[in-house]
């Protein structure tokens, strides 16, 4: 039985963070701060508006207001507030999305299909091999249709869990074989649709080692709710060992 004080403590903590899950990425805390700022502001505004409504209903009748100040002053204040939030948000968005990943970032391909996520690492040649949809055959161990005629593909590693090193930037190239899926990692504050016919890059740096959920967040069929995978973030040396083992397995 967990002591009551600890239960109360975790409850208070989850209230303070509005139930947000653990934040395990480097860009996440800034996003969380901005999100929480937004939530507290709108909570305040909602309370204020309801207070004005209630007081106005309860107070004694008075002649109707004709002054335009009651309209334009609050409106100007709200405009400034929303502009402030927009600028703050756009700066965070620009930092996350306007530029691509650093050239030294770890390259991983993310592929969605009904109803699984696959992850591909380019292997020792740092180059992804060509894939062809007609070669896709999950039963034969080639779920992404890597073309054996292309040498670059021979050392590619395909996994069903995403394993990443902590504190290194990752460049994800996301696409889909069939329909639109939503690649989402709540604990990394990441979401990007996987769209067939497109390759979309997002980049981020996982910080805290651990196991996190990867979900599908775009309805894609009857198995949508169970289309998920684990993201395992490892300390750098453990990741290196994992990658070496995988590379050996591919080369054999």
């Amino acid at each position, binding site marked *: 039985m967990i002591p009551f004080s600890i239960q109360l403590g975790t409850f208070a903590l989850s209230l303070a963070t509005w139930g947000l*899950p653990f934040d395990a990425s480097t860009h996440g805390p800034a996003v969380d701060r901005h999100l929480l700022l937004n939530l507290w502001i709108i909570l305040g505004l909602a309370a204020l508006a309801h207070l004005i409504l209630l007081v106005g209903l309860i107070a004694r009748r008075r002649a*109707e207001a004709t002054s335009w100040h009651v309209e334009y002053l609050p409106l100007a204040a709200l405009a400034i507030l929303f502009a402030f939030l927009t600028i703050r948000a756009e700066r965070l968005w620009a930092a996350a999305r306007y530029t691509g990943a650093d050239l030294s970032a770890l390259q991983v391909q993310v592929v969605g299909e009904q109803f699984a996520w696959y992850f591909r690492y380019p292997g020792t040649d740092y180059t992804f091999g060509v894939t062809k949809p007609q070669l896709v055959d999950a039963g034969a161990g080639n779920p992404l249709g890597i073309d054996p005629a292309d040498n670059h593909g021979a050392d590619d590693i395909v996994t069903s869990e995403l394993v990443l090193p902590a504190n290194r930037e990752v460049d994800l190239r996301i696409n889909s074989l069939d329909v639109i899926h939503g690649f989402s990692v709540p604990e990394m504050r990441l979401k990007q649709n996987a769209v067939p*016919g497109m390759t979309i890059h997002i980049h981020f740096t996982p910080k805290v080692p651990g196991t996190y959920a990867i979900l599908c967040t775009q309805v894609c069929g009857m198995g949508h709710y169970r289309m998920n995978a684990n993201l395992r973030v490892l300390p750098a040396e453990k990741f290196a060992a994992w990658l070496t083992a995988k590379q050996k397995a591919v080369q054999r």
Partner: protein
Amino acid sequence: MAHRKTKGGATVSFRRYLFSTNHRVIGVQYLVLALVSVTIGTLLSLLMRIHLVWPDYIVPFHGPILPEDYLALVTIHGTIMLFFVLTTAPQSGFGNLILPSQIGARRMAFPVANAISFWLTATALLILLSSTFVPGGSAISGWTAYPPFSAIASAGPGQGFGMDMWLASIAVFAIAGTIGAINTLVTIIKLRCEGMTWDRIPLTVWGWFTAALLSVIAFSVLLAALLLLFCDRHAGTSFFVPTGDLVNGVIHAAGHPGNGSPLLWLHLFWFFGHPEVYIAILPGMGLTSMLLANFSRRRVFAYRMMIFTTLLIGFLGILLWGHHMFVAGLNPYAASAFAVSTMAIAIPASAKVLSWLVTVWRSRPRYTTAMLFSLGFVSLFITGGLTGPVLAQPILDEYLHNTFFVVAHFHLIMAMAGIFGLFAATYYWFPLMSGRFMSERLGRLHFWTTIVGAYATFLPMHLTGLMGEPRHYAQLIGVPNAAGHLLAGTLPLNRFITWSAIFLATAQLLFFANLIHSLYRGKIAPPNPWQATTLEWHPALHPNAPFETSDGRIVVYRQPCEYLATAGEELILPQWRSDGIPNIKPE
């Protein structure tokens, strides 16, 4: 409607009421259709809520809810509520019933087109509902029907014939909606009575006008998109399907010269989809302004500003569809631009709220049920609206997109506020339709249970969304991996939400009871029972006024909602009176 009694009995009244071209009859027909739809839509949502927290529940006459059943429930619930309730009831239902009278007209501009529009809408509903019974069942791709999922029959059960029927239903609805919108626009532009200048038009009419403008623009684009999707499904085109798309082991559009893009559908769909939510809510916003003013005996604060903001919301409403696509593969710079246009709409929306707050400020209003629901509308509009700017910021939407936070947002602002507008309209205009009041005691009980139920259902959804619960998940229990842990964490709150939803739905029985009871037993209403100032309460337009003799000239002398308070006595100044009449309190 007081028609002269005609001999010939059943067949005559059958013709008169079923295939009527009278705008009031058509308005009632739309409202009945919406009432049927909202009942079905609510029952579907209850099945969803129950399945989410008690997945082993066996539905009588059906069996367990399979994942594809759940998605069909989501799809039909969303489609039915948005199109056949939130668009149909305010715009077509009350639009037909009240709009002509409010501008001093005796009919809609095109009565036959009006009847055709209704029967097309009814056909669309029938097609949608009967898709349940075709092989594979109803479509399962949600009301947004993103391709390639919606373009390829083998992408899931329901994506075959069920999807075709969904397309047919929405296409017919779009045609009906466009006809209805043109009818509304022409009526407002051409049939206003003498003295009804643009700045004297009630804000409800401005709501219908703006919504109709949006309908013409939005539905025509939707219709084009539906046609393209149909061609992708059956004519071998690939507007939305990229080359080499591999669905269920089959390669589609192989060797096709065209390389389609699913994003094209998203652009077309949301170009329709965002204005659609304003089509649903604008008439309610107009009505709220009018009712708050009338029951507060106050002018609408900043009337011209309210007209302007209505039009501005409509105009901005067609410029911000991209906020549905921040994480869909949109250029990140475009996301920034759409974020700004979306944030901009917060300004006219805030101006509306300020006007409502100022209008009722220290007014000691009369708390009729219609007034309560209007105040509820204001509350829900504030609570649901404030999360809009949060979702408009791409970096925050990246986390919140397609979570229950979004579900909470649009259910409060569009569904609940929209429904509150409809309830206010029903309680307010019931005497006009039937000559009787609805029961105020039952009405008050209905209001309080409904607003408590609405908040209890939709406020906690913000939290499960923040916890990371995605939309469209058929199950939260028994999901493998770390995801299962994340989803299971939302279960206690989700159980609470389900109980609240059951409470909210049950409370609506009060409304049905009130409706039926009052239709036969309701207190007889005098002419203009709310002491209103707008033309639909003109004595010549009263339901008990003989139809044939009611062709006296109607002239408008002033803006709506003008009242004079002299010492101890109130004077209401209806739009049709050159002089004021004393406010005779009904009690």
